[in-house]
């Protein structure tokens, strides 16, 4: 009865059928999605009945100094499987990603948190205020160069 975890390859093939330009590759656990295509991929992942990823577990950003990874964990409650897709952003300034707020409202606070602590801006999010820290705080504390 345990939840099945999709391998990266499986997910990337499923995505590639519909959105060929969105998939950049895959690894053991996750499919890599082009940053500009995250919105389209999200809608597809949620609405396609054979995928049915209607539950967004979490969004995470990881700072690898040269680039940032943003990780999305998804679950389908109906089909009982879960999957991971990631996207990679190069550079350190003016990073932005399309928001998935309209697809999964659960992304609301998590995207704000990533903006606040990591400095990745989500376009299309209605309320990109700082969430944890106060206005006027300098820098984004979870970055590796923040002291």
């Amino acid at each position, binding site marked *: *009865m345990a939840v099945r975890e999709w391998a990266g390859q499986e997910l990337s093939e499923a995505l590639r059928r519909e959105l060929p330009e969105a998939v950049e590759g895959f690894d053991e656990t996750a499919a890599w999605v082009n940053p500009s295509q995250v919105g389209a991929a999200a809608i597809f992942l949620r609405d396609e009945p054979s995928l049915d990823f*209607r539950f967004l577990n979490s969004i995470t950003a990881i700072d690898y100094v040269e680039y940032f990874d943003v990780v999305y964990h998804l679950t389908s*409650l*109906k089909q*009982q499987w879960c999957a991971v897709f990631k996207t990679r952003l190069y550079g350190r300034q003016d990073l932005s990603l399309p928001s998935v707020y309209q697809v999964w409202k659960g992304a609301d606070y998590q995207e704000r948190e990533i903006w606040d602590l990591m400095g990745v801006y989500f376009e299309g999010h209605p309320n990109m205020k700082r969430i944890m820290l106060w206005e006027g705080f300098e820098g984004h504390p979870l970055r590796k160069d923040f002291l």
Partner: protein
Amino acid sequence: MSCQLAADNVLYANGLYRLVYDLVGTILPCWLSYVIAGLVMIFVLVNAVLLGAAVITWAERRLLGRFQNRVGPNRWGPFGLFQPLADLLKLLTKEDLTPDGADKPVFALVPILMVAPLVMMTAVIPFAENTSLAALNVGVLYILAVSSITSIAIFMAGWSSNNRYAMFGAARSVAVLISYEVPVVLSLLGVVMVAASMSLGSIVEAQVLPFFLVQPLAFFVFMAGMSAELNRSPFDVAEAESEIIAGYHTEYSGVKFALIQAAEFGGVGVVSAIAATLFLGGWSGPWSEYLGWLWFLIKTGAIVFLFIWFRATYPRLRIDQIMAVSWKFLLPLSLVNLAAVTLEVFLLRGPEGVLTTGDLGIMAVINVVVTVVAIWVFGNLIRDRVKFQARQPSDVVVPGVTTIEVH
């Protein structure tokens, strides 16, 4: 020079007053001794109310503690009896803040206006035979009139504090006070009708059978209404701590806060005394010539215990639900009670218009039945008409997991 009080004076019945009056009257002019005796009585009454308030705060804290399976204040003095004293001392020496935007004269007037009606109400309560300060023949009416002053005081507090929470609390409180006045008055009408008098002394004497047996419905409505008027649970929206901080007295501190607290707990005491007088037979009981005051205290204590017990048990209602309870539940009940009592009095009273003990017994039996039926009928009527239908189960229900569902 000796003064005599006319027998038709409302103050004549009070033995203590006459004693002081006579004593002082031997050396001073009559008008002055009249005033001095009055002042002595006021001194006694104010202290009685404040002492009562202190004892009730102590009792409430101890009893709540025990209801909640803990001890309550027990450090200072025997059984923690000095706790109210400590509270008072502390509050007296505390800084007396007035908020910046406050309407200062109104703000300062509130605590006095809160305590004054209580003291005024005690003037007509007979603590024992012939001990009420003023044996007014319209005692019930007087009490109802005076008790309404509190609502003005509360509104003044909310208005002058310049604080939103205080305003919220005051608005709620006044709404509650006004709507609960109606069923309370109607429930007292039944009492007045059976006793055929508005004087508290005569009502006590009429209670050969205590009125809470003769008119349980009226007693129920009176208690519910009074706990609303006193902002006691389950109707304590005015100072709903979890919602609006401390309600109308959010901004008060120091002495003023002490007075407001005293008024609150003193109010419980005075209302309990009134309830004991009107429904439990006041000072009457075995050896009431000597132990009337003791009977009175025991009965008052019982009512206070009831108030504390309710407070320990119930959550509070929402403001609109409180209004609904008043208008849709208590008001019909008090009307039913009034109608039943009117009919019974009309049918049962003898040619001289007097009800015998037997008549009261018959009324008690009938009214107990009426009470149960009425509460059951109206209780079911105010139940929310909307039956909460179970919703459609969602399509994301996972198969193969045993679930239990709420009914």
